[in-house]
């Protein structure tokens, strides 16, 4: 069992959990993920690592409450325990040897973008960041991003904060202003990563995306997380989660991720109803 050391709601549906998991904390690197189960009947879900404290033996994740499992998780309190927490999984992001990079984060994906961005910064790269959110109410981690990036563009879909519009538009402005990046790194919803890749392709800038497909074991055994990349089948859990955004077959990846959408919706409603009954 794995104790929740800290629980902090960054926004009503965006929650930070610091989990006691010393063996995972000892090995974790930016870009890697963990798999957790909330309870005995729980689903195994992959979550990318936000931060880790090797001395304290904790790993921090930021999770958006979006489905049945994350809903159950959101009802756990500080001091409660998670059933399972395994990792670190996947290949760490390659952050060495870059002079200038731009990190693009979308929504809760910014939670994962941050440690990668910080690692690029710590490895000596000049870092620009473009982060996008639905509206002012869900903007997270702005101060943290500001501290390690020389240019930070915050975008909101409705213009209620920062620049109005999509991250791809803000990214294009930077590219058109003549910034020469060695690499663009995008983390967020699949559709966002797809369009970031489409945006950078004409500029010929290497673009890495952090994929989050459906997954069970996370060690290569099930093959559920497979993607078509450059015409070949790749497993996100052992070959990734980072891939060349210009080579990913996006349409297939987006559709595959919809596999259990109906089930998810029903299960989420079921769980929400359960918690409502408990409150009564």
């Amino acid at each position, binding site marked *: 069992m794995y104790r929740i050391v800290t629980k902090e709601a960054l926004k009503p549906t965006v929650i930070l959990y610091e989990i006691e998991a010393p063996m995972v904390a000892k090995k974790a690197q930016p870009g890697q993920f963990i798999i957790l189960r909330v309870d005995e*009947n729980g689903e195994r879900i992959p979550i990318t690592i936000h931060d880790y404290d090797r001395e304290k033996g904790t790993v921090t994740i930021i999770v958006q409450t979006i489905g049945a499992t994350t809903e159950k998780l959101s009802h756990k309190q500080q001091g409660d325990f998670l059933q399972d927490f395994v990792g670190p999984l996947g290949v760490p992001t390659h952050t060495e040897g870059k002079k200038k990079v731009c990190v693009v984060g979308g929504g809760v994906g910014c939670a994962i973008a941050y440690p990668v961005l910080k690692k690029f910064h710590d490895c000596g790269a000049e870092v620009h960041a473009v982060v996008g959110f639905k509206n002012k109410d869900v903007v997270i981690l702005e101060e943290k991003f500001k501290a390690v990036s020389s240019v930070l563009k915050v975008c909101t879909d409705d213009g209620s904060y920062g620049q109005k519009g999509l991250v791809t538009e803000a990214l294009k402005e930077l590219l058109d202003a003549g910034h020469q990046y060695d690499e663009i790194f995008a983390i967020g919803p699949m559709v966002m990563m797809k369009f970031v890749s489409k945006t950078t392709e004409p500029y010929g800038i290497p673009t890495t995306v952090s994929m989050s497909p459906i997954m*069970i074991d996370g060690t290569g055994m099930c093959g*559920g997380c497979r993607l078509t990349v450059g015409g070949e089948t790749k497993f996100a859990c052992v070959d990734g989660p980072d891939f060349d955004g210009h080579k990913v077959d996006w349409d297939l990846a987006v559709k*595959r991720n919809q*596999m259990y959408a109906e089930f998810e919706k029903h299960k989420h409603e079921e769980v929400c109803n359960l918690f409502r009954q408990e409150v009564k």
Partner: protein
Amino acid sequence: MANMRLDKNPMPAQDPNVRNKNFDEVALGYTEEMAIDEAKRCLNCKNPKCVSGCPVNVRIPEFITRVAEGDFDGAFQIITSTNSLPAICGRVCPQENQCEGQCIRGIKGESVGIGRLERFVADYHNAHGHQGGAPAKPESNGHKVAVVGSGPAGLTCAGDLARKGYDVTVYEALHLAGGVLVYGIPEFRLPKAIVQKEVKRLEYFGVKVVTNTVVGRTITIDELMEEEGFEAVFVGSGAGLPMFMNIPGENLKGVFSANEFLTRINLMKAYREDSDTPIMDLKGKKVAVVGGGNVAMDAARCSKRLGAEVWVVYRRGMEELPARHEEVEHAIEEGIIFKTLNNPIAINGDENGAVASMTCIEMELGEPDASGRRRPIEKVGSEFDLPVDAVIMSLGTSPNPLIKSTTKGLEVNKKGGIIVNEDGLTSRPGVYAGGDAVTGAATVILAMGAGKQAAKAIDEALSK
């Protein structure tokens, strides 16, 4: 006087049309009377061929003699002196190729039902407990051994070493111990409660099981030996990554590896209402299972239980199916349709990226190939579309590169399997390996045999 009836006592089983709608165990097991009657068919040969046919050399005539005498606990002690997991072996071993394949009674009539008797003895023990108090726990010899993976190879190695007094820790990547016994083999062939009982029995003898630990990521073999003080490591990490055919459409929605499909059902219990893990709704749907091994039979029979119409598509003929005869027979009884001598060449999707059909080509058999089986050859112009909603690829696995890439000096062969000598020792001193991680996908009992061999070698090396 031996019972000279020619046929085995039949195994009581659930009716095919009832069991193909539930996940309860198919075979129900012998009663005491049936077991004693069957045991009396054994001739107690002076030179028992059955024992040499068993990868872990269970003293078969001795235990069967005890069963015939009604001394089931005595029989259990004899079996477990060489086999740590009898309730499992009695259910999933291919006895027809091993002990029973060598049985003298099989020359004229049917062999003695050795597997059924082994299962009976183990189940009797599990139901009645140990006679005459708990068995003695071994005295610690102070040596530490780590085991990677809690499947049949790892559990056997751990059990044998723990009984000799070793301090054994088993590391498991998943949240539950058992490896393929819990994620791969379905409940209706091997109830998971039985696996957990066997694991508990090993824990009683002092084996520590640490779940949620991926060796190669969470901790490496180098760290286990250099920092954690393990004097030897046994790698029984299993078969690895599922293979695909590299045909168009394999990554469409509704195409699964057998590993994924079976893991959702067996480990995650996705067919149950109270499980949070999803699985494709197969009620009234059509499913093609590609492949002809035991795993393909498991996937097909699970699909049937989820309400699908199921075709097994295999490129050779019925005679060449690599699955156990009994599994094929059970599948046919349950209404699985075999489309042998057919090979898929493409999977076709609809506008939502979901499977709509599978294009197959008919095959015929030519001359025997390197494996000794007749080579399948495509019949030109025989392509046809099979309308299906889901495809389950059951084509075997390729080794997981994780342990090799994170362990200094560990050599693998061209196919990626870990190279070992006859003792199970790898190219890295102190590191042993066995089971599918060495051989590629094989059987539970072969993995157990390898675990047993390595345990013996580790004991010899460390007790010097």
